[in-house]
Each structure stands twice: as structure tokens, then as C-alpha cells.
């Protein structure tokens, strides 16, 4: 079922938690709401669920599920599945009773027979691979298992919209990875529309069909993960999606100067700030005609597929981070304290004017 938000705003006291927001989510889509804490993403999710009411302003907002206007429909009648950040399992009920809850509270007319409920609960428990845990209590389960119970509980009522609030936030990295893949799989199989909230850009990029990047109660960009990473709409999105190195200085005759560092750039004279990702930094023993950016290695950490190298220099306000392939790392024989030269392969700038598209340059 598609979800349409039209002009939804929310304030708590004097703080504007959400500026008027409009958003279309297609049927069967898996959408991530990504943003730092306080960006309004959870508030937005709770408004979609009906756990929070949008402001009633002069032009009140609207929420549509498909063709159905649910703006004033109570949570209990919206027929959504909601997965809470800390699972919110009923602590005094067994796993079985937790999953069965949504079925047992149906009015007698709609309630399936007890045998049917039993069959359905076990089918769900099988799906989340917890059949043998039916009689356990939530406190006896690990975090990942609790989260799976909470998913099964939400799915028991066969919602057409599944909403998840930081579903994997409290889990360790490995379990999180596993559950992510499993959720993606489940989503594709059961074909409901899902919206999840996260502050983890990796999670959002990996799991979503589209990502909604939010900050300060506003939507900064809505795009597919790929488009988001390749062409961020503004500086906030670029900085939020990964590590960023800054190079700030004055441009004079197509040369950007910053202390004893300088870089050839094709830009008009004036103050400039260039941004580049760690993998866009190349390290060499000698400067080139294009760039002269002397740096000193302060830390080296071989993590995963790459080596992360921290760089400092007098002309840098904040240290840079460069990622180097293991082969290059061995080739260059990098060591802590070593002095090298950095070369941007590629950089971006986000001029202050908001409307202007970001500029990107490849350096030869």
C-alpha cells in the first residue's frame, strides 16, 4: 500500500520538530528515514503510525494510505505493524502470547479460531526461526531474538505497512548485518510497504530502495542510495553520508593557497572550501606541479579491505583521513610520523547559495 504525506508538520512546545513535509512512498517500497538525532525522523515515523498527531494548522496536513485518508484514524484502526526501538515486547507474556496478541484482541467476529491462531503464530515463529522458543519469556532471549519476536508480533496482524523505529540500533554489528539482510529478504517476499528509521548511513544505504535524508525537521534529499552517494543535494547530505576531508583557503590565479600548502584549481578568485572523501586522497612521496599538500601520518589502522591513514599538517584545522588499498600501503611503506604529499583525485564544493547544484571536479 502506498503512503502519501501531505504538508505534515509537528511542534512540541516551542520547538518545531517537523517543518511541513510532503512525501510519497510507493507500494512495496522499502524506505529509510536517515538523519542525526533530533532531525525529526522518529517523529515522522510516529506520525505515520498515528502514535503522534500532526499539527492542526490553517492548512492541516494529510496522511493517505493508498486511497484511504487516515489522518484522523486512530492507531489501532490504521492496520500498521510497528517495531519499536527497544522491542517493547510484553515482558510478562511468553513469546507465543506476544506474537498471538494482535490476533487475540480482535473482536469476536474477526478473531480466528484458537486453532487457526496457533497455526499462524507457529508459522510466524518458524519464519523468524524461533519455533523452539515459544514458551520462553522476553527476558530470556538475546537482543536479536527479541527483535525477531517483535517483528513476528507486528506481522501477525498482516499489516500492509510496516514501520520500524531504529530496528537494529541496540544490536551488535554482526547480528545487525544478519538481521538487515533477513529483513530485506522478508520485505521482498511478503511485499508490504516498509519505512524504517535509522541514524546509521550504512544501514540506510544498504537496506533501502530510497533514502530520505533529514535534518532539523526538514527533508534534505530523497533518492536511491546510489544517486544519494554520487550526487548529494547539499553539503549536509554529503557530510552525513560518510567521512569528509576539508580544504579551505584563498584562490588566486587559479591556485588555492592555505598556509604552505597549495593546489591548482579551476576556480575564480575568492575564498573556497573543497570537500573530498577519504578514498579520494592519493598519497605520494613527492609533490607535483598540480598540488603541494605536505602532511604527516599520525595514525594507521588496517580495517577491513582498506588501510585508514590519519593525516595532520599545520595548514589543516582538522586531520584528514585517507583510505589506501593494502597493496598501495605495502608499496608506499607507510609509517607513523612519515611525511608525505596528499593529492585530491576528486573534490566537490557546495557554494553557499542553496539552489545552485554542487560542483564536482576531477583532477587529472
Amino acid at each position: 500500500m502506498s503512503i502519501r504525506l501531505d504538508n505534515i508538520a509537528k511542534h512540541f512546545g516551542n520547538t518545531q520538530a517537523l517543518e511541513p513535509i510532503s512525501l510519497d512512498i510507493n507500494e512495496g517500497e522499502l524506505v529509510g528515514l536517515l538523519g542525526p538525532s533530533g532531525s525529526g525522523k522518529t517523529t515522522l515515523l510516529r506520525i505515520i503510525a498515528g502514535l503522534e498527531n500532526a499539527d492542526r494548522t490553517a492548512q492541516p496536513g494529510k496522511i493517505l494510505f493508498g486511497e484511504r485518508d487516515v489522518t484522523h484514524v486512530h492507531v489501532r484502526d490504521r492496520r500498521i505493524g510497528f517495531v519499536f526501538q527497544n522491542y517493547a515486547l510484553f515482558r510478562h507474556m511468553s513469546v507465543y502470547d506476544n506474537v498471538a496478541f494482535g490476533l487475540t484482541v480482535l473482536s469476536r467476529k474477526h478473531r480466528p479460531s484458537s486453532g487457526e491462531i496457533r497455526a499462524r503464530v507457529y508459522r510466524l515463529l518458524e519464519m523468524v526461526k524461533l519455533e523452539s522458543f515459544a514458551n520462553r519469556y522476553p527476558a530470556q532471549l538475546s537482543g536479536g531474538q527479541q527483535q525477531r519476536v517483535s517483528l513476528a508480533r507486528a506481522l501477525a496482524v498482516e499489516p500492509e505497512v510496516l514501520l520500524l523505529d531504529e530496528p537494529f540500533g541496540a544490536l551488535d554489528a554482526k547480528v545487525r548485518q544478519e538481521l538487515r539482510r533477513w529483513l530485506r529478504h522478508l520485505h521482498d517476499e511478503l511485499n508490504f510497504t516498509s519505512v524504517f528509521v535509522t541514524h546509521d548511513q550504512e544501514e540506510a544505504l544498504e537496506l533501502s530502495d530510497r533514502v530520505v535524508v533529514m535534518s532539523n525537521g526538514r527533508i534534505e534529499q530523497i533518492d536511491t542510495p546510489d544517486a544519494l552517494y554520487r550526487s548529494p543535494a547539499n553539503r549536509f547530505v554529503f557530510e552525513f553520508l560518510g567521512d569528509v576531508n576539508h580544504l579551505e583557503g584563498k584562490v588566486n590565479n587559479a591556485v588555492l593557497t592555505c598556509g604552505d600548502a597549495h593546489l591548482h584549481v579551476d576556480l575564480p578568485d575568492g575564498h573556497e572550501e573543497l570537500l573530498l572523501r577519504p578514498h579520494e586522497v592519493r598519497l605520494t612521496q613527492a609533490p607535483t606541479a598540480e598540488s603541494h599538500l605536505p602532511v604527516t601520518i599520525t595514525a594507521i589502522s588496517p580495517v577491513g579491505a582498506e588501510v585508514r591513514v590519519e593525516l595532520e599538517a599545520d595548514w589543516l584545522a582538522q586531520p584528514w583521513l585517507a583510505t589506501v588499498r593494502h597493496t598501495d600501503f605495502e608499496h608506499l611503506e607507510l609509517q607513523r610520523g612519515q611525511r608525505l604529499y596528499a593529492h585530491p583525485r576528486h573534490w566537490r564544493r557546495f557554494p553557499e547559495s542553496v539552489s545552485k547544484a554542487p560542483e564536482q571536479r576531477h583532477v587529472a
Partner: protein
Amino acid sequence: MQRIGDAPLVRRLLITAAVLLSGLFLLLPLVAIFAQAFSQGVSVFWSNVSDYYTLHAIGLTLMIALLTIPVCLVFGVALAWLVTRFDFPGRRLLQTLIDIPFAVSPVVAGLIYLLLYGRNGWIGGWLDSYDIQLMFAWPGILMVTIFVTCPFVARELIPLMQAQGSREEEAAVTLGASGWTTFRRVTLPNIRWALLYGIILTNARAVGEFGAVSVVSGAIRGQTNTLPLHLEQLYQDYNAVGAFACAALLALIALLTLAAKAGLEWRAARREAFA
């Protein structure tokens, strides 16, 4: 290495002091009550207890407690629910107001009720014109008892419900549960032990309350005399055995209450260890 208080001398001194003080101030009086009550044999004790006026006092006391508990229960749950589940202006003030009955001396509470609801009082005068008498009758005793005991249940529930948060209730509602179903199947099971504990405290206080009740009851023997008031009257009449027989009854109720409380705490601890 030694931790603070590890020195054997300090430890022994502290333990001795604790045992001595609790023996002297807690255990000895308790033993004395029962010793006095039975000092002239079981039959005298029994005849004192089965005295008409004593039986009436027991009956009245139990009736007041039985009526107080449901009122405090509903009031406490509603108040705790209001304070922990909603945010509204004056919420903190309300939380402070709950404690007034604890902060005010019961005698003062009794006097205020007398002033308001007595025959010459503001509301009492008006009620009197309809022939309704609250003070110096059991309704007055009930009113002040409720006043004195009403914070117990709320006080037990508020910290617990605050700690538990409202996520489980929200989960229940997203699953389609009605308000009443949510309360019955999610909220109530989570607070039941605290609730029971609150009831035990309420009961203990309702049975034992003296100050506020003595002001509004008039202590008419066989009519408005509760057990603590009756005890005091017997003592004033130099009937020491009778007084101590009543005291023994009250002490027995207190002991039973403590036992129930300890039982609940033990259960709660066991549940925690199990979970």
C-alpha cells in the same frame, strides 16, 4: 587491602549497636504487648476480645479498611496513569500535591475535615439542612482515612510506571487493542505487584490510623469507635488487659501485613533472578 568498615572492631560495634537498638525499641515492646495481653490467661484475653464493644470496634475498623482500599486503588491507579502517561501543565505540581497527606499531621487533617464538614462547617452546615451527618459518624471516619491513605498506591506505582515507560502500551494499541484491553492485559500485569504492595500499605495505615480519626469520630462506644480509639479508651479506664488485648490484635494485623509484604518482596526478587 581493607575496605571501609572492614576493621573487626568497627564491624562488631556496629552490629551490636544495631541488634541492641532493634531489640530494645522494636522487639521488646512487641513481646511486651503480647505478654501483657495474655498476662491473666487466655480466657481473660478472650473475654476482652469478645466483648461487644471490642467486637464492634473491630467490625467498624475492618469495614473502614475494606471501603478505603477500593477507593484508594482506583484513585491511585488513575493518578499514576495520568502523571506517567500524559504531559500537561501542572503535572509536577500534581505530583507534589499527592504528598500532602504524608506531609500534614493527621490531626490537622481531621480538624480541617471537621471545619469543612462539621455541622457548623461550610459544607457540613448545608448538608445538615438535608439531614446528612458526616462528622461523628462512620462516613467521616472513612473520609479522613481515605485522605490519610490515598498517596500509598500512587506513590508505589508512579516510579515503576515511569521506569517501564509506555512503549508496551503503544505496542498493544498498534496491534489493535482497545484502551481497556491494553490496561487489562498489558498495564495491569506489569504493575500488579506494586499495586498489591500499595494495597498492603494502605490497609495497614487504614487499620491503625488514630490521629485524624480521633478528631472526627467522637469515639462513641459501640457506634463510632475504631479499634485504635477503643484501645485508648480501655487504657484510660485502667483496663490494661483489655487495652493490650486490642493492642495485640493491631500488632497481629501489622505482623501479618509485614509478612505479606516480605512475601511479595521475596517473590519479586525471585522473579527478577529468574528473568
